[in-house]
């Protein structure tokens, strides 16, 4: 986990605008496309089978993300979430995703879709639920 964080942190330094430092405990979102703005999510340790929320921040002030889509699945068990989440924009390039429920322990893959100027940037991240 520490190694992973360190890896992600170095990744963050190389790809994101330094104007948007990632907080130390944040989860870096890994973009599919190189030119996507750097982004990270902040959350407490996800509880098992109980709703929780995360804050998602996009780092390029020149690209104001208009909408955010979120989904998550467990690759090992071939299933997703039993609920849809609620997404609200709380500031420029900052979104709250709430009512996320990971109902089983294990590795969850998070998928983000950020809409900007008719394009969609996609990102992924992983969290381990205990």
């Amino acid at each position, binding site marked *: 986990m520490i190694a992973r964080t360190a890896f992600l942190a170095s990744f963050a330094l190389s790809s994101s605008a330094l104007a948007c430092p990632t907080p130390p405990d944040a989860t870096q979102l890994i973009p599919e496309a190189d030119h996507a703005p750097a982004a990270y999510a902040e959350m407490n340790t996800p509880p098992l089978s109980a709703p929780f929320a995360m804050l998602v921040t996009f780092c390029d002030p020149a690209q104001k993300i208009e909408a955010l889509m979120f989904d998550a699945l467990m690759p090992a068990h071939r*299933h997703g979430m*039993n609920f849809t989440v609620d997404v609200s924009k709380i500031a420029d390039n900052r979104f709250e995703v709430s009512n996320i429920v990971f109902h089983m322990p294990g590795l969850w893959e998070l998928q983000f879709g950020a809409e900007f100027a008719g394009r969609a940037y996609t990102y992924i991240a992983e969290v381990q639920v*205990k």
Partner: protein
Amino acid sequence: MNWVVRLVGVLVCLLCGLSSAQADVILSKAEIDQTLRHGPWPPEVVLDPSNRVSGDTTAISLGEVLFSDLMLSRDRTISCASCHDPEQNFTDGLPRAEGRKTLDRNTQALWNLAVQRWYGWSGDSDSLWAQNLTPLLNPDELGHDENSLRAALVASVHRPAYEALFGEMDAEPAVETTVNVSKVLAAYIETLRSGKTSFDQFRDALASGDMKKAAQYPLSAQRGLQIFVGRGNCAFCHSGPAFTNGEFHHAAVPFFLERGGVDPGRAEGIDRLMESPFTLAGEFSDDGSKAGAWAVRNVRFQHGNFGAFRVPTLRRAARTAPYMHDGSLRDLASVIQHYNQIDMERLHSDGEAILRPLGLSDQDAEDLEDFLRTLSDD
């Protein structure tokens, strides 16, 4: 002389060997961490914000009386207690419930139901009081309608207690009365809580680092627990202090009905939930902030819901055979063999990828059963 010393030495060593074999914690650090997640128990008592008589002592005693009162059935022949018999852990010991006819499902026991996310095998309701409406109004169970229930209550000895809680009945619409009766019953059912078991003593000892005390937990149960959190994969679904994640899974139990057709399980449960005016998002909830309503608003239909049922708690389960939504498995040993030799054909393509034959030996199966029993010995 010499041989006596040696013999005594051997004996002492045998004894010490024996006692250390009998009194040991065999769990690894990782297994101890997993074990800790199944507690602490009991959980804090929480009141249901959607039920204004939750925790009210008058409501609890009225609920207890009503629970066994034949007045709750239209023809005054059965009550809640006919199926949820307090002498039988609030169930009936039958594979499937006997109402006016044999129902499709097994009668659930009523332990530890305060403020859960879903109720019923398929989660038709999102509150305990809403769940109680089903048997009251189902023609195959208590068979009332709102008016007949109201009339029965008005004419009954319970009217003063009811009015002390909810006010004058004269102008009260029948639907209000019906919901209020459900809430009174819920106030009572919420008080049915199971206590600390030998598993909980073990877990508490581990939590406080008291290995000597923890070592009193039988070795066979410890081995069973290792299977439960390990290669048995049980804790993926039977997680947390109540040994359920409160959600729905397909556990490869056949869902064909004796009378033909299938029991769609959660797939139908979601439909019923969507049609119901009695959810936490609706006007009958007493919680102005509608705190629990996110679940019904956000619940998502998925193909995998078909044939999925709510993961049952395993607390007190050893006392409530037979098992599964259709009562098709006679005893705990049969449940274990069901998982051990799971029929992969029964799981649809998008079903659970974690269920697979376990290859348990007879000894493993006995250990697992010993462990399960330690969740019911309170």
